């Protein structure tokens, strides 16, 4: 794919976004929507820039990011470890499998009240919720990736005298890496969503709290700002993960 094709693809992709913003502006300009309900895009983006320059807003973003990363990191560590263990050992598999079957489809947000009552209204309950929600996609895709590693690779490593532990870290984990990273990507998006929701339910800071405060006072402009911010954060984090992915998978054939 050459550079010109890529630029034309990007331009094409920007069309619907531009169209949506134009439609938004048109709805306001032609008076179909009152400004109090649907502020014009210029006003919203101006407000976003203005907010980004203030310290308080940046602290809200920092609070959200902290919870997001803490929860996501716990999910990655636990998910990869349990997923690998379940793929490698039939005994662990027999225990983990039914538990995952029960817990994975459980709507974790419903657990949030329980977490609130147990560990309180601080960071911990939100971090635990994020971790619980991001854990399962990572665990499942690690398990899937690790259990579809070609057996021949393992046999060759065994024939070459690699100890089991070496096989796990030098053969299985690298071979499962693409699948693990796909799981991480899904987990990251879920983390963005969940951290925001948790902050909306109960919080004193963070982007979700900004939205709730604005909604209580019917400040439509301020309601759009945190939503756009979380979308941008998601895009940036996704881009970073993508960069990490292409760095980690540089030796792999195109996936």
């Amino acid at each position, binding site marked *: 794919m050459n550079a010109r094709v890529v630029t034309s693809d990007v331009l094409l992709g*920007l069309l619907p976004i531009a169209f949506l913003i134009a439609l938004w502006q048109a709805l306001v300009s032609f008076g179909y929507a009152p400004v109090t309900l649907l502020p014009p895009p210029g006003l919203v983006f101006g407000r976003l820039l203005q907010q980004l320059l203030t310290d308080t807003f940046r602290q809200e973003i920092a609070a959200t990011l902290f919870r997001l990363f803490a929860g996501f990191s716990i999910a990655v560590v636990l998910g990869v470890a349990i997923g690998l263990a379940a793929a490698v050992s039939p005994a662990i598999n027999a225990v983990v499998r039914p*538990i995952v079957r029960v817990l994975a489809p459980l*709507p974790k947000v419903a657990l949030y009240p329980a977490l609130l009552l*147990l560990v309180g209204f601080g960071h911990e309950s939100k971090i635990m919720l994020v971790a619980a929600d991001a854990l399962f996609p990572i665990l499942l895709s690690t398990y*899937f990736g690790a*259990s579809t590693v070609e057996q021949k690779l393992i046999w060759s490593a065994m024939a070459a005298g690699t100890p089991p532990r070496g096989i796990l870290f030098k053969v299985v984990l690298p071979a499962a890496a693409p699948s693990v990273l796909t799981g991480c990507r899904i987990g990251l998006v879920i983390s963005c969503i969940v951290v925001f929701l948790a902050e909306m339910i109960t919080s004193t800071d963070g982007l979700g709290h900004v939205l709730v405060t604005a909604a209580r006072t019917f400040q439509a402009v301020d309601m759009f700002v945190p939503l756009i911010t979380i979308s941008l954060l998601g895009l940036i984090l996704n881009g970073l993960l993508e960069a990490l992915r292409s760095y980690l998978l540089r030796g792999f054939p195109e996936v």
Partner: protein
Amino acid sequence: MISGETALKRAAPFLACLGLLALWQVASLVLKNDSFPTALEALRAIPSILGDKEALINFAASLRRMATGFGLAVVVSIPLGLMMGRSRLVASFFNPLLMVIYPVPKAALMPIIMLWLGVGDIAKTLVIFLGVSLPVIYHSFQGAKAVEEKMLWSGAAMGLLAPQRLIRIVFPAALPEILTGCRTGLVLALITMITSEMIARQSGAGNILFNALDMGQYDTVFAMIIIVGAMGIGFDAVFERIRARLVRWSEPQFDIPLSFS
């Protein structure tokens, strides 16, 4: 012997449930926290919720919205995803838009949508629709992209037009992947349903749950968590049955423990 083993396999999820409940029971007995009832207390509160007529009406309203949102989302998303998978033009047209929308929590749009559409059914159904459609689009897209070109070429050689190829070749070939997306979507529908009702407290299961939390009726809170959890597990199990039947022809994945230890 084999039948015993399969019986054990069948029973394993139930055993896991029992194990988790037992763990909960022990934890609550050890912690002795007023706001953390034991598993037995929570289970005892379930019949009184399910026997209450008002609660049942709430559940019915929730399920109706969830079914409408999920149904609409599937009907719209599958064709869109398949077309994105088969045409680079369509894919590059929609991809950036979807990437912008993806990390936005759909239930967080509730306050804004409520301003326009009110707190009624339409707003909540719309939010569920948005929540379900993204994974379904994504998986249909991936599934359609992975369809073997040769099959399409032979279809074209035998005179199938592009829309016919999409329905008769791409759709069945991508079905396993599409159904994976629908399964994710189903769980998401339940999650969005609960959160949307929590934000717009008017009716529904989420409303009961968070009202009980506010009023400090902790056994109701935990009983509701069990009910909602059971709904999630139940829906998932039923869907998995249907899925397994529909894609019986596709090779089973996911079941090979590695042998080197």
